[in-house]
């Protein structure tokens, strides 16, 4: 469905580029939910914006790599050209719906407009479809809400509206960049449940971005862990949590406050991620890795498939040789 290969996004002049996304590859199958997890600044948003063709201009550029949607390279196309060329459809939702919603227009009009742009229909069918979309995202009292303004809705409801607008183009791929990060856990669980249900029902694939390992465990089918612009581990969600192989993945899991309440101190990962442009030779995690060895500091670690579908970017993966 969606295949991203060696995607590199850089800042600065072509002669001295600073890579903020460095050779990212992943595959997304029909109906699948791929979780992309990592701490802030690791390049998750830049990856998703590059895939969508929405990188801020002027600014970061795609320096290398390909984004294949149903086999065709869309890297050079604008989003509207992708639809016209029949290259399949992608839509995106963000953390803060208020930045994408028009505060002075009614919800119904905003959804209907997205429908008209995509379906080229007149007002009446567009409004009917807007109502259908509100039902699809399980908005309470959809007929009433068509005439509401964004500020009259709760944060969770606004995110439902953004999902409805995204669904107006009947996407095959939905990219969700931290859509529940600003919500209370009680509302987050509803929005995550809705997204999962929609993926199943519409056979839609989703790239779900978060910094929260708990959310990943609840939602994703497969997971890619990102650090300093690179994907350092990819696996099925059960394999990743059951037997993490990258030292960073393990560290992220251990320092979650909701794990092992009994212990007095939380395990931590020493130091902080490197700023873009400051990574030298060798493994990007070497300065924080508890298992670092001499070769890690000089040679780039290999990307190896440690078991079927489980890839890790590390010269000395955790727990190598033998189950835990």
């Amino acid at each position: 469905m969606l295949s991203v290969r060696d995607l590199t996004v850089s800042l600065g002049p072509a002669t001295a580029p600073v890579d903020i996304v460095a050779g990212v590859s992943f595959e997304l199958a029909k109906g699948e939910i791929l979780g992309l997890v990592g701490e802030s600044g690791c390049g998750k948003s830049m990856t998703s914006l590059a895939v969508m063709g929405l990188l801020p201009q002027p600014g970061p550029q795609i320096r290398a790599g390909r984004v294949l949607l149903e086999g065709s390279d869309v890297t050079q196309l604008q989003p509207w050209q992708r639809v016209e060329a029949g290259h399949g459809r992608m839509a995106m939702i963000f953390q803060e719906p208020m930045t994408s919603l028009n505060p002075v227009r009614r919800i119904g009009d905003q959804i209907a407009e997205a429908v008209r742009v995509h379906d080229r229909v007149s007002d009446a069918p567009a409004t009917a479809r807007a109502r259908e979309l509100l039902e699809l995202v399980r908005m309470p009292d959809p007929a009433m809400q068509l005439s509401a303004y964004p500020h009259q809705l709760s944060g969770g409801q606004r995110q439902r509206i953004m999902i409805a607008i995204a669904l107006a183009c009947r996407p095959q791929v939905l990219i969700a960049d931290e859509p529940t990060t600003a919500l209370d856990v009680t509302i987050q669980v509803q929005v995550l449940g809705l997204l999962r249900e929609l993926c199943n029902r519409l056979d839609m694939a989703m790239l779900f971005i978060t910094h929260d390992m708990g959310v990943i465990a609840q939602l994703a089918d497969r997971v890619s862990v990102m650090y300093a612009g690179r994907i350092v581990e990819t696996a099925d969600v059960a394999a990743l949590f059951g037997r993490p192989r990258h030292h960073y993945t393990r560290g992220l899991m251990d320092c979650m406050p909701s794990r092992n309440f009994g212990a007095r101190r939380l395990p931590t990962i020493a130091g902080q991620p490197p700023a873009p442009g400051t990574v030298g030779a060798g493994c990007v995690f070497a300065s924080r890795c508890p298992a670092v060895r001499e070769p890690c500091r000089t040679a780039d670690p290999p990307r190896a498939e440690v078991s079927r579908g489980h890839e890790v970017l590390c010269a000395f993966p955790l727990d190598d040789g033998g189950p835990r």
Partner: protein
Amino acid sequence: MNGNAVLDINDLKVSFKVRRAGRKYQVRAVDGVSLSLAEGEVLGIVGESGCGKTTVGRSIVGLVRPDSGSISFKGRDVTGAGLRDMRLNIRMVFQDPYASLNPRRAIGDSVAEAGDINGFFTSRAGRSAAIAAALTAVGLDPSFAARYPYELSGGQRQRAGIARTILPSPSIVIADEPVSALDVSVQAQVLNLMMDLREQLGLSMLFISHDLGVIGRISNRVAVMYMGRIVEQAATRTVLDDPRHPYTRSLVAAIPKPDPSRRILGAIETGEPPSLFKRPSGCAYAPRCPLASDRCLVDVPELRSVDDRALACHNV
């Protein structure tokens, strides 16, 4: 009034005048909260955004004037007091260290501010030594005193914010979502730091957070707030392992567990969040509550002591 309590809050009520759609409203953000904080204890306050956690904290340090109720520090009534020694004894740590660190001032000056205002320092050398000691205590090199906030990472800024809080040797720290803006790896570092400081400095702490995972880590006891009231209060393990109030149950159930074999999506009902503009007449939680009965729609449940906890519910 509790025997060894350093802080006693009794029936605190706070409301705000707000304007909405051209009309003026009086909304009650805190609706009768009573709490007591024992010496050396960490009491967590948890609840969804807008439930009044920050307003409780700000009332204690005198940033908000309560409508009614009392706040006493070591048995002395300090309600609404701008008392100078209060400002040094009860100190607040904020979620966004930008709010407490002036971007145009060197870190050292921000850290020393409360001391400067209150004539705390007797000499320049004493001031520098106090800044260096506070920075060292939070794991920052004393050379950070000369740096500016923009030069620091999020975790370093929060450490500086904590240094600013502890410099006047307060007895009580009110920490309002102090790690909510931090990445997990940094969050763990700062939480460990706060636990160490509590022990070393003998602090008592009110730890406010929307995240039960974080609260569960650091608190001895937890108070769960809903629409300006405490609905359940007990030892941390009791709240997490055996929540009884329907709201607490829902909060605990909604924590995304880092275990793909225990998935909850689609399996729990949590309802729509409340609005202070439409406060229900009986139990505030009734519109979302699976156990709501007729009585819940008319009678406000009082917080009463049941077994090992305090609970405000008619039906559990």
